[in-house]
């Protein structure tokens, strides 16, 4: 597994953990106010960033230990672009559903949850696509 594959796998795991924690918290707390929902969104965002940074640091330390260089070339750029394109479609569909929900009178809390869910799914698709393209080719 190359550096990029490890990075994508780590991000996928991190997103899975964050998504699971988010879901559990939303079910447990059932936030009824905008502030409570915003707080959860903020915590989730911060957790995602911290986990991603921690995973990146751990990977770089590991690579330094085994003597592998994390370079980037045309293939990495192309696969990243293709993966982002896949994620874009999921994000677009997700946000379109949020707009439909808004017209149907769903609460702001519900809309925020859906928007975050769409973001998490899109990010998961991006990293899963990267892993797929690295393993199967383009």
């Amino acid at each position: 597994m190359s550096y990029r594959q490890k990075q994508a796998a780590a991000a996928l795991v991190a997103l899975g953990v964050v998504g699971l924690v988010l879901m559990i918290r939303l079910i447990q707390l059932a936030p009824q106010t905008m502030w409570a929902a915003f707080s959860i969104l903020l915590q989730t965002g911060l957790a995602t960033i911290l986990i991603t940074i921690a995973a990146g640091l751990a990977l770089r330390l590991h690579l330094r230990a085994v003597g592998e260089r994390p370079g980037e070339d045309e293939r990495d750029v192309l696969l990243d672009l293709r993966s982002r394109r896949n994620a874009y479609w999921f994000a677009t569909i997700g946000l379109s559903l949020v707009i439909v929900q808004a017209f149907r009178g769903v609460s702001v809390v519900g809309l925020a949850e859906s928007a975050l869910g769409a973001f998490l799914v899109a990010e998961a698709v991006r990293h899963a696509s990267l892993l797929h393209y690295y393993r199967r080719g383009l």
Partner: protein
Amino acid sequence: MSGREATRVRNRIRDARYRAGEMTQQALADRVGLTRQTINAIEQGKYSPTLEAAFRIARALGVTLEEVFDYDDGAGG
């Protein structure tokens, strides 16, 4: 070549590396400015390099482009 091939561009990089003094994938990657993983993906037919990278690979191996790369368009040519 092994595994599922995702491209119709055939290559003989492995043979050319062998003829070029058993050059390693890493050595070739360093010469052409790609990663070893990308050289490996090209050899396995999982990735088609850009024309520019293909020329650099051919030159690094001391052969012409046609000696290393071939396009299978199904016409049998």
